[in-house]
């Protein structure tokens, strides 16, 4: 598994791709592999405030329910509604399946997140995937 270098990562297996004052958020391929077949995603509406480290939705596979944790604080601007009907796209391409876009409250929050190589090391220790 390889992790895009222009993303930042959390220990809860979310990725965040900053783009100026906004950022795109999804879950990593390690997460989708651990979950198994994803069948349901619950995402917040545009306008919702999300806080770094707090849950902003959930993703469900056949066997499990998993909370989604916001990598950074901000306001939801866009939601990928396609995932409501095609949640399996996350299994096919986790890094290419964005879930929400947010307007960042404080871009500095991203500095404390993991780089691609840090995240790769982290998951190697965690699951040996």
């Amino acid at each position, binding site marked *: 598994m390889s992790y895009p270098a222009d993303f930042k990562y959390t220990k809860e297996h979310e990725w965040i791709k900053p783009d100026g004052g906004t950022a795109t958020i999804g879950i990593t391929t390690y997460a989708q592999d651990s979950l198994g*077949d994803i069948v*349901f995603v619950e995402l917040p509406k545009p306008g919702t405030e999300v806080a770094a480290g707090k849950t902003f939705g959930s993703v*469900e596979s*056949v*066997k499990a329910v998993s909370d989604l944790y916001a990598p950074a604080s901000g306001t939801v601007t866009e939601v990928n509604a396609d995932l409501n009907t095609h949640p399996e796209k996350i299994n096919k391409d986790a890094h290419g399946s964005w879930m929400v876009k947010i307007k960042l409250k404080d871009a500095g929050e991203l500095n404390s997140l993991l780089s691609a190589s840090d995240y790769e090391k982290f998951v190697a220790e965690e699951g040996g995937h």
Partner: protein
Amino acid sequence: MVDFNGWDMPVEYSGIIAEHVAVRTGVGIFDVSHMGDIRVAGPQALAAIQHISINDASRLAIGQAQYSAMLYPQGTFVDDIIVHRLGEQEYLIVINAGTREKDFNWVRDNMRQFDCVVENLSDDFTQIAIQGPRGVDVVQKLTEADLAAVKFYWVTRGTICGLKDILIARTGYTGEDGFEIYIPSDEATSARVWNEVLEAGKEFGVLPCGLGARNTLRLESKLPLYGHEISDTINVWEAGLDRFCKMEKPDFIGHEALKNAKAAGVKRTLVGLEMVDRGIARDGYRILNSSGEQVGYVTSGSYAPFLKKNIALAYVPPELAAVGTEVLVEIRNQGVKARVVPTPFYKRPKKS
């Protein structure tokens, strides 16, 4: 891999959905060696079985099997079982993994007064289930026994993968046609047979299947799981297993309690639910009435990979049990609409 009642078992091999669909459309195989096996044989074997089982084993011809259950005196479940009649005075009871010890002790203790032997053969067998419309084709490649002559819920014996006199049962826990074979449990034999079955199934698209698919398959077919739809606090009427319970048998453990329970009327009943609004009802989730009060709970719930719906089994009060009734399932503190639907959710197509 997860711990399933002390057994190290896979949740999935390649993916729950693919495995589930393979069983419904082709063939899937399961290592179900965790199940337990109790042999009852002797002059009073039938009487002994009749004493502990709710179904009527006297209707079994040699080679025939039936689904049944064992009850506590209060009419609640010790376990659900499959009773196979293997000979004139010989029976095999197959029990659940999680209840092996408990079941064996229960059977042995309650059969003491009958002239028969009770043997725990659980560790002697590796049990492999080959399930799906092509299951019979796979197993037929491996045995000379004429499987076309074996009806559903009947058994035969034959040579399989070079092993003589193997019990081959047309039974399963998936709602599909299929077989379960009982082979010697040594690792070398078990691994060899598993691999030969897999090889034989290749042309039919066989997939090895884990606990995840096992659960979604039995859920679609409304087959109970001990600890969920049936338990030591649930009785036969509540669970809707009336048709396996032969009250006309003069007696069996739990008979009296069931008679009284029927007279008193059920306070809750097992129903099938289909989610109406977005959400997946899962095991243990509460069922609420329109005022937000809890009126029941989900025993088993999941996304159904073949039906492509979110389904569940749940206990609700009898007044909410009619097909079409809308209830709310509490999912992460929100009441989400679901509807009572007929069960089983899935029934395999009749062979033309």
